[in-house]
């Protein structure tokens, strides 16, 4: 019997408070540290994975049309890419380490499966990326245009391959396949190809890479809009805005349909309790409506101030307007995600922003088509200022996926509290969490400063200057 507030001794009360505030709780610290470091890390790869195909497009145009401006554009994007790649690499190393340092029991349990994909990322993607990036950045004059195109392509290929291995790893935690339980209680791989082509991984990958392209194209568009608005580097301003808007409008629409829709189907089928929590559906309903805005109250188990579209949720999930969608009340409490408001808000932020991206980019594309975009300063202002939002949407999407997976670390197999390192105390965890916070604050400031300088220099500085 847990003590009630009236019967608690002082010591129990202290422990109770600590448990609630969680700052002396290794589980909370480990989760916070992983969440913080991975969120910060992913700001960079989403940009590099998004820019990489755009660089390849410019390099291809340069080869095809033999115009130097495409090379210049590619070189400029490569500077942004290289900086972001560096920050992605150095903030990425802690991710691979943290499985072992903070989540040792999880590593022991699932290493027989997911270490395959993580190790494959190392030998297949990292070597490829790092070697060809060196060639791409330092060798343009020496290797000639065709080889330089190839090295750009290999950097793109490597970064997208790297993404795939990470997604497969996460997909196994979301929807474990291709394994069996060994006698020592750990998971062992029994089918390599089932793991590698987990259906969850394929749609999650497509959805994730769509998000990366949105980030890359929004950033490029914003840089172009900045040049046009400030009337410098105008030639490149036009090029970036034009190419960026075209890429962004395609990627934004694709992101909702089919990729987002298919991702939603998977959640509906395999994680129905997550779906209910994401949508804030406390009670099972037939002809369930979809909520656009509203605040979940987990104590009273209802949504406050909801604005909704009737029947839409049933249609989106089951393709029938009157279908029954299971609410949280149909699932045992211990299977509910442990932070429903966070899950609900991050999901709604992602979808809301995604819809906004389509609206902005269709508007911009129409102006581009009517040849009025470069003079429509109000639209250029919108394009310039909207670059942070894809970062937010992608982050919110990942929070949706990972908080939605809770309370499981490996869905249905291992709960989050079973996965942490048995010998690492909360005190040591907090020490490194604070260290990461300080370090990343400095890194973030440095990155913004350096990117600002590069954008300020632009693609057309005097030859040979740094």
């Amino acid at each position, binding site marked *: 019997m847990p003590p009630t507030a009236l019967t608690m001794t002082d010591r129990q009360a202290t422990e109770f408070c600590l448990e609630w505030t969680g700052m002396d709780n290794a589980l909370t610290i480990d989760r916070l540290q992983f969440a913080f470091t991975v969120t910060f890390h992913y700001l960079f790869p989403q940009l590099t994975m998004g820019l990489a195909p755009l660089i390849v497009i410019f390099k291809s145009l340069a080869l095809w049309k033999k115009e130097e401006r495409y090379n210049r554009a590619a*070189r400029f994007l*490569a500077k942004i890419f290289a*900086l972001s790649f*560096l920050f992605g*690499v*150095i903030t990425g*190393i*802690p991710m*691979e*380490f943290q*499985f*072992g*340092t903070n989540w*040792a*029991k999880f*590593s*022991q349990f699932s*290493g*027989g*499966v997911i*270490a*395959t994909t*993580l*190790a*494959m*990322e*190392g*030998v*297949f993607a990292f*070597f*490829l990326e*790092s*070697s*060809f*990036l*060196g*060639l791409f*950045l*330092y*060798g*343009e004059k*020496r290797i000639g245009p065709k080889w330089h195109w190839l090295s750009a392509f290999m950097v793109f290929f490597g970064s997208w391959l790297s993404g795939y291995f990470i997604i497969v790893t996460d997909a196994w935690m979301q929807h474990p396949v291709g394994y069996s339980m*060994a006698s020592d209680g*750990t998971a*062992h*791989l*029994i089918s390599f190809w089932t793991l590698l082509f987990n259906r969850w991984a394929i749609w999650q990958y497509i959805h994730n890479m769509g998000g990366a392209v949105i980030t890359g194209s929004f950033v490029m568009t914003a840089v172009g809009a900045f040049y046009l608005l400030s009337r410098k580097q105008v030639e490149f301003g036009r090029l970036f805005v034009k190419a960026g808007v075209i890429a962004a409008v395609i990627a934004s629409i694709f992101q909702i349909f089919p990729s987002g829709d298919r991702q939603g189907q998977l959640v509906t089928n395999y994680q129905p309790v997550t779906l209910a929590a994401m949508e804030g559906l406390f009670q099972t309903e037939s002809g369930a409506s979809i909520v656009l805005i509203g605040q979940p109250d987990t104590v009273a188990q209802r949504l406050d101030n909801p604005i909704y579209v009737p029947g839409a949720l049933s249609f989106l999930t089951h393709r029938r307007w009157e279908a029954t969608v299971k609410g949280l009340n149909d699932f045992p409490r211990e299977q509910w995600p442990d932070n429903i408001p966070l899950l609900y808000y991050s999901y709604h932020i992602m979808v809301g922003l995604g819809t906004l991206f389509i609206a902005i980019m269709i508007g911009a594309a129409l102006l581009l088509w009517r040849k009025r975009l470069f003079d429509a300063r109000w639209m250029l202002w919108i394009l310039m200022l909207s670059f942070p939002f894809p970062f937010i949407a992608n982050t919110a999407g990942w929070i949706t996926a990972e908080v939605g997976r809770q309370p499981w670390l490996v869905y249905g197999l291992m709960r989050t509290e079973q996965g942490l390192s*048995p*010998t*690492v*105390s909360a005190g*040591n965890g907090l*020490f*490194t969490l604070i*260290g990461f916070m300080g*370090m990343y604050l400095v*890194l973030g400031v440095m990155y913004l400063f*350096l990117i600002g*300088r590069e954008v300020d220099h632009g693609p057309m500085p005097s030859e040979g200057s*740094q």
Partner: protein
Amino acid sequence: METVWFLLVALMLGAYVVLDGFDLGVGVISPLVAKTPDERRLVLRTIGPVWDGNEVWLLAAGGAIFFAFPLLYASSFSGFYLPLMMVLWLLMLRGIGIELRSHVNNPLWQSFCDFVFTLSSLLLTIFLGAAIGNVIRGVPLNKDGYFFEALWTNFRVGPSPGILDWYTVLTGVLAMITLTVHGANYVALKTEGAVQLRARRLSQKGWWALVAMTILSLIATLYIRPQVIDNFKMRVWGWLIPLMVVATLISMLYFRTKGNDRTAFLSSTGYIVGMLGGAAFAMYPYLLPATTDPSYSLTIFNSKTGDYSMRVGLVWWLVGIILAIGYFVFLYRFFRGKVTLEDTEGY
């Protein structure tokens, strides 16, 4: 099969120490061999296109440990929690110091980057050596195969040692000297003029320290862990390894005095391979010995992953590593020869 993976993991760690070893060494010696801003830039340029790829071997080796021996990965990464996190921070700072130096054309910024680069490289070499020292000495494993080590306790090699005790400090210093000489050999190979001269001189002086430290650490190892000799008794061909160490030490001195930079660099490479190979040979089949109860030790048998994974892994690993070696050969051939300040390219 687990023996094969033991070899592969050792091979990847060896590749890491040889490759990232020289660029860490370059970091340590750069204030000693480069006196002017131009020389600094030159020294940095010797590793510019390759250091990142070299560091990937660490990640790949870490991945291979996780893959082949999940329990070893889980146990050692959580047990060495604090030093590993510090290694991460040092790796971050070092990456910043190398890559961002040229982005801002300001002498203060560049001095700061040089300082960060050298300090982080120096500390990393010591940490690497101390890590190997910890593995050889053993750690206080419990019956579940887990442990936690504080950074230091009383600096004694006892039942509850810290990450740093007199033995691991010794191996740390050995690693620092080894990589300093290795880095100096690399700089001598890649540069000309005053920088090359200083690097050669440094390598020559460092050689004596290297020999002294090698002997000292060998004696210390036999003293704290006499079992290391067992495998050599059982498999006599293992004596080839210490023979190789001696041979490479001699050839290092010989070719250094003759001014043959390439062979001197190959000799220090051979020395590192020999030392690490000897350690791996002596450890086998142990991965992490216990200082508590020897039966708690992690071996390749009680830490391995499933047999199916290991078999499939051999296939994809071979494909992947052949590709990776191909990239490296191409990259190094492409950037072969001396670096100069003239062909200013890059971003």
